[in-house]
C-alpha cells in the first residue's frame, strides 16, 4: 500500500478494525499472524478460553502485547470470533480424543459426500 500516505494508511486500518472495510489479502495475513502470536502466548500459559473468567485474567496479564497486536491488526469482530473459535476447536479436539479412547472409529470423509449421485467409491 505504498501510495497511501501514513494518515490514509491509519484510516484504512481503522476502517478494517471497525468492520467498515473488508481486509485484503495482506491485511488478512497480518491479522492471522497476529492471531497466531496471541494463540502461542495462550498455549504457553495453558489458557484456552481468553474471553471469560480465569483465562481472561491470565491472558490480560501475560499476553498483553500479543493481544494488543491482535486487536490492532484484526477487525474487532474477528478478534472475538477467533477467541471463540479457539474454545470450540479445543472442545472438538477433546471430544474426538475422548471418543477415540472409548473405541470409536474415525470415519474417512475423503471423497464423495453422502449426497445422492456421488459416483466415486
Amino acid at each position, binding site marked *: 500500500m505504498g501510495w497511501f500516505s501514513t494518515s490514509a494508511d491509519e484510516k484504512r486500518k481503522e476502517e478494517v478494525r*471497525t*468492520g467498515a472495510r473488508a481486509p485484503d489479502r495482506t491485511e488478512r495475513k497480518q491479522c492471522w499472524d497476529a492471531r497466531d502470536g496471541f494463540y502461542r502466548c495462550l498455549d504457553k500459559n495453558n489458557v484456552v478460553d481468553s474471553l471469560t473468567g480465569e483465562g481472561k485474567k491470565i491472558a490480560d496479564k501475560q499476553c498483553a502485547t500479543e493481544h494488543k497486536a491482535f486487536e490492532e491488526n484484526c*477487525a474487532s469482530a474477528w478478534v472475538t470470533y*477467533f477467541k471463540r*473459535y479457539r474454545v470450540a476447536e479445543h472442545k472438538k479436539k477433546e471430544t474426538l480424543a475422548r471418543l477415540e479412547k472409548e473405541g470409536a472409529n474415525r470415519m474417512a470423509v475423503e*471423497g*464423495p*459426500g453422502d449426497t445422492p449421485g456421488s459416483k466415486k467409491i
Partner: protein
Amino acid sequence: MSRSLAAPQTLLRSLLQSRPRTQQQCQRFLSTHSSSPSCRPRRPTPSQRCTDGQSTLNANRPFLEQRRYKAKTVEEQKSRYRTGPFSWKAGLLFVVTSAGLVWYFEYEKQRMQRKRVAEATKGVGRPKVGGEFQLVDHEGRPFSSRDLKGRYSLVYFGFTHCPDICPEELDKMARMFDLVEEKAPGALTPVFITCDPARDDPKILKAYLAEFHERLVGLTGTYEQIKDVCKAYRVYFSTPRDVPPGQDYLVDHSIYFYLMDPEGDFVEALGRQHSPEQAAKVILEHMKDWKR
C-alpha cells in the same frame, strides 16, 4: 459349461441304449428259460406266447419297468448305476448350473445398482437445489441464472468480511478452477454469491475477488434477492437484516461448493474434505458423463 453340456449327451445316449435292453429283458421275462435270448421259430409255444406277450407287455409297462432293475451281471449293475438320476455327472451339472445362476444374478444386481446411482441426479427424486435468480454481478451488470446455462458452474456462498474459512475456500476454488480449465477450457464458471449484500456491493466484490481469481463472477443483490437465492441453494445464512451503520458483524453460512450442470441442475456438493485436486477430478468426471 462344456461339462454340463456333455452330461445330457451321456444321458441321452444311455437312454437310447436302454431301449434294446428293454426288449431283451421283455423276451427274457416272457421265455420260461432265462438262457434263451429270443423267441425261436422252431419252438412254437414260446413264440406264440412271445407275440401274445408283446401286446400285453405294452399295457403292463409299469410292472415291467420294476423288473428292469434286476441286473444279471456286475457290469450291467454298474452301468445301470452310472446312468441313474443321481450320478456324479448329474451332481456336477447341478453344481455348475447353480454357480452360473448365482454369478449371473450377482452381476445383474451390480449392474442395476450402477445404473441407479448414475441416474440418481436426474429425473424424479433428485434433490431440488438451485433455481432461478436475478442478481447483479461485480461489474454492476444484471446477472441471472440464465447466464449460467450452457456450461457447468461452481457456486460458492460467502462474504468479504469472512475471517478465515471463505478466503481459504476461495483460494481452493481458484486452484480447482485452474485445474479444470487446464483440461476443459471454458467449461466451468466459478461463481461467488455474497450472503452479506448490505456491505458487499459490486465494487467491493470486484476488488475482493480480484485477489483470488480474475475469472470469478461475484454476485450481489438486495437482501430479499439474496435470501431467495440462499433458500434455493439450501444455504443456511445468518445475516442480520437491519444493522446500524458502523456496527461490525459476521455471517454464519454453509461452506459448500455447489456443482451445477449446464441445465442449471444440482450435481454434487464439494466440501472442505476435498482437496482442490480431488474436487477438480470429480468435476471433470461429471463433465465426461455429460458429453456421453
